[in-house]
């Protein structure tokens, strides 16, 4: 049973976390989603999750909040990706062309969407470790604690995730830097 005092102290902790981290969380979500409404939703959901699970957060809540926000943003990107695939399939049927052909469009927006979609499509742990480390600049000890995995495991996820991204993004990266699965450079 939650007492009125409990509720008040939880709300006070929530307000303190919001004041300290709301802008950072919004910046993080906005980086990935590029959509104010979506980023605002993610930011709000992050604090709602924090309020529900604050008993688990033993240290300063910043790293925990960022880990949750990255995850929610990546989930949303993945959903967006799934919806885009469905729309793309319909568009291909209508137009009779392959809209996924990299040669068909070299626009910056398209390239950006491809790269973020490739990140969103990675297995959960790989994409979270990459987001926290590469985009968030977190140290291994801190990101491992946020994700409740070992540092060794975090490094393995980073390595495997980057390998997978390189293969997925081969067509979108500079040609001198593309190595095929067979080990030849093209």
């Amino acid at each position: 049973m939650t007492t009125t005092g409990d509720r008040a102290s939880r709300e006070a902790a929530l307000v303190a976390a919001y004041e300290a981290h709301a802008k950072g969380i919004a910046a993080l979500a906005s980086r990935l989603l590029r959509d104010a409404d979506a980023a605002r939703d993610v930011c709000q959901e992050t604090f709602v999750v924090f309020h529900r699970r604050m008993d688990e957060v033993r240290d300063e809540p910043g790293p925990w909040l960022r880990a949750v926000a990255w995850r929610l943003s990546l989930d949303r990107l993945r959903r967006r990706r799934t919806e885009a695939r469905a729309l793309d399939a319909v568009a291909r049927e209508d137009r009779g062309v392959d809209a996924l052909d990299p040669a068909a469009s070299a626009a910056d927006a398209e390239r950006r969407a491809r790269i973020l979609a490739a990140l969103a499509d990675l297995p959960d742990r790989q994409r979270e470790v990459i987001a926290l480390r590469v985009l968030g600049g977190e140290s291994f000890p801190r990101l491992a604690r946020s994700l409740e995995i070992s540092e060794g495991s975090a490094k393995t996820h980073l390595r495997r995730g980057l390998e997978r991204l390189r293969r997925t993004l081969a067509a979108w990266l500079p040609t001198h830097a593309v190595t095929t699965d067979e080990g030849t450079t093209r």
Partner: protein
Amino acid sequence: MSTADCAAIREHLPELLTGRTERARDDVEAHLCVCADCRREVDEIRATLDALREAAAPSTEAEVAAAVPPLEGILAAVRAADAAAPPETPRAAIASPARPTGAVGRVALAAALLIAAVGGALLDRSLLRDATDPVEGGAAVDAGSASAGANEDSRQARAQRALGGRSGGLGSSLAVLEALSRP
């Protein structure tokens, strides 16, 4: 340059290239000076990292400001959630934040149910044999005292009633266990 050297060096490259400083350990630096393949590996990882950072470049101040939700909205949401259900206790929470019903949880639940079902089925077979097979179960009873035998007969009868003609599954195992555990 040996393949083993390259493999050991490449193991460290993602960590090195995603750190705040790219200053490599001396052995990595020395290896990269003489190994073109590993230098190419470094280039490829850097290209991937650059692409990612470029795709998720920081938003402008105005974009960030527009993405900050009002505190009042968050408080209204948590109060509504509180009214619907009390906050989770640490005991009830699972390790993975924000994914209480994620894939790992579902797999763990499925595994637990499978173990329980298989265990229950095996238990059923064992109990069913003891309770209904006059040769195996009866022989064991005959070896005991008369009162113990009568007591065992009564327990077997309760077990058979609890089974109610079913011969497998978790439900029947639990029913049999419950019947046998009664004095």
